[in-house]
């Protein structure tokens, strides 16, 4: 034994620290229930400089009252904080950095605050540990980024402190479990305090404090796409996806990214796909938020099961009324869970399809643009081959055969698809020689360019020009020409080797709409099962209640 070991070891320092913090809190709030006007003092009492703090805020619900309260704390007392949270969505998240209270952040997504965050990073006001995927950040909560204090949001609490999250459970279970079982403190803002909860989503003994927020927590209706805005090009690309990929591979289990491109596919299922005789053969099982644009397909009997990352504003009554499809509690309301749904999307789906802002000649795709640090959310987990997967399915095996050729050991591959128009708005080309992500990485001192989906995971690209099947490409040159071959009139597309592209088309690596038996003239909005938000309400039998900003009647 050395001298240093002679003092008795302490094995419960985290627990002691928690006890000290709770003792300090006692002078502010006697019980678990904190009066709203004492919350700033309470935060000052339980948070210490240097703490890792999670302000629950994913891309949907936000612990907004607690975030506003944290901004009111004394910066000389609460400083040097390390934010570890899914999303930097609220202005207050960035205000905390500007006030000098936060020195480091680890997060997944910062869409709404991307420009402010980029400026702070360039001015050395903040250090970014890393931009994670949701699942990756949750994983680190249980390894080296465990929160000391978690500020979360729930629908209601009872007097013991049990929490009901309602359909928007989202990140709460992952955050609370990591914090509560590693000596941390959990503070929940709730919309209501009730005598009896409809169900318990978070048990009281994992929660230290509850505060009733003066206004209900904010939820962003992020997954609502108005069918009125879907273009005929998106209809065409949806037809290509359904006939050229979903039918071809027999895709039953899948995840759709957010956007009008995938909303178009959802609205073509009860019409175009049904006419092709695909009902029951494709798109039966989903990892997906309750997209309003999926309502017509559900009503048509296309869909058997949907597990959701979060909920969607206005879909509460509809999901509750379709318990065979959605995951619904004994109380009759949906339960979401971001961590489980991300795992489901990664391991149990055969296809991911989403959209992006830029694709390079290797097939790397990124939503990073100059001056904006936006992050990823869940797309990299959805859009990556699950190398730990050990169960087979026809679609997965076929993709594996196409991609790996005749190797001795049978192995499948996930289909990872990007569906993009060759030009975005204002004639920005989607296809580029070099991703903006490289420049962003340089200016923000990032070790990795923020690539959303790596070329090695991408299996197909759909544009208005057709499908490029990257699995079948045997050399980097073929891959490059396959990408150029669907890149339209962008500089990348115009620089194609026309003969090589024709050769790829002969081999079925590039397939034009006409090769798939798709007549472009059929690509009209008449094919959409709903052409307005109002049509969606009608399709739901009045159960869908769209938020105000989507109502024009």
């Amino acid at each position, binding site marked *: 034994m050395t001298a240093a070991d002679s003092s008795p070891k302490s094995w419960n320092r985290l627990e002691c620290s928690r006890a000290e913090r709770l003792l300090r809190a006692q002078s502010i709030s006697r019980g678990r229930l904190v009066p709203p006007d004492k919350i700033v003092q309470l935060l000052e009492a339980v948070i210490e400089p240097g703490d890792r703090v999670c302000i629950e805020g994913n891309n949907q619900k936000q612990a907004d009252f607690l975030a506003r309260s944290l901004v009111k704390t004394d910066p000389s007392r609460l400083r040097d904080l390390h934010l570890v949270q899914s999303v930097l969505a609220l202005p207050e998240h960035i205000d905390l950095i500007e006030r000098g209270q936060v020195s480091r952040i680890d997060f997944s997504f910062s869409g709404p605050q991307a420009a402010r965050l980029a400026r702070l990073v360039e001015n050395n006001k903040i250090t970014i540990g890393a931009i994670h995927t949701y699942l990756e950040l949750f994983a680190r909560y249980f390894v080296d980024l465990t929160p000391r204090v978690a500020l979360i949001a729930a629908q209601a609490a009872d007097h013991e402190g049990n929490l009901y999250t309602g359909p928007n459970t989202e990140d709460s279970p992952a955050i609370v479990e990591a914090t509560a079982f590693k000596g941390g403190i959990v503070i929940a803002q709730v919309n209501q305090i009730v005598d009896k909860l409809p169900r318990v989503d978070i048990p009281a003994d994992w929660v230290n404090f509850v505060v009733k927020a003066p206004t209900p927590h904010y939820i962003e209706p992020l997954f609502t796409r108005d069918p009125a805005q879907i*273009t*005929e*090009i998106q209809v*065409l690309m949806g037809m290509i996806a359904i006939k050229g990929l979903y039918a071809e591979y027999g895709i039953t289990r899948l995840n759709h990214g957010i956007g009008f491109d995938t909303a178009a596919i959802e609205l073509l299922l009860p019409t175009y796909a049904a006419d092709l005789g695909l009902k029951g053969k494709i798109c039966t099982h989903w990892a997906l938020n309750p997209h309003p644009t999926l309502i017509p397909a559900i009503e048509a009997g296309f869909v058997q099961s949907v597990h959701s990352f979060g909920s969607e504003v206005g879909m509460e009554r509809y999901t509750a009324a379709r318990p065979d499809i959605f995951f619904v509690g004994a109380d009759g309301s949906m339960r979401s869970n971001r961590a489980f749904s991300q795992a489901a999307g990664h391991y149990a789906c055969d296809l991911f399809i989403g959209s992006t802002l830029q694709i390079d000649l290797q097939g790397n795709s990124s939503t990073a643009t100059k001056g904006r640090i936006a992050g990823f959310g869940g797309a990299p987990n959805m859009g990556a081959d699950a190398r730990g997967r050990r169960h087979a399915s026809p679609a997965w095996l076929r993709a594996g055969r196409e991609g790996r050729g005749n190797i001795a050991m049978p192995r499948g591959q996930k289909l990872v698809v990007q569906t993009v*128009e*060759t*030009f975005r708005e204002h*004639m920005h080309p989607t296809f580029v020689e070099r991703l903006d992500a490289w420049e962003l990485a340089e200016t923000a001192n990032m070790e990795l360019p923020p690539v959303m989906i790596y070329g090695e995971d991408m299996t197909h690209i759909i*544009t*208005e020009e057709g499908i490029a099947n990257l699995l079948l490409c045997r050399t980097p040159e073929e891959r490059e020409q396959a990408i150029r071959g669907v890149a*339209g*009139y962008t500089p990348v597309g*115009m620089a194609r080797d026309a003969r090589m592209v024709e050769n790829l088309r002969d081999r079925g690596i590039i397939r034009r709409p006409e090769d798939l038996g798709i007549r*472009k*003239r059929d*690509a009209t909005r008449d094919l959409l099962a709903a052409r307005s938000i109002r049509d969606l309400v009608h399709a739901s039998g009045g159960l869908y209640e769209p938020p105000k900003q989507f109502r024009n009647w």
Partner: protein
Amino acid sequence: MEKFTLKLPSPAASQEIKSSGICGVVSSGNLEILVESTSNKESCTVVVNTSAHGFRDIWEAVLHDFALRHSAGGLGFTINDAGATPAVVSLRLDQAFEICCDEAK
């Protein structure tokens, strides 16, 4: 506004479409295309009126490919564009062409 006219070689349209006047119109949002028959059966004429400057190369490539793809000789197209993408222009041209030829049947 930018305005230019292109005359592109294209095989004569196979159907005897209406001898004169407008034989088809497609429009929506940011693009309108009028199709008329012309006397020159060896080429197709396209008049482009566009609100966007500096994309003439792309227009020429899109229209060149269109004239290769279809037998559009003897057809005159007038395009009024308010910022449509090449994808939309190609799709609409194809639709306008198909409408004219179908109506002649």
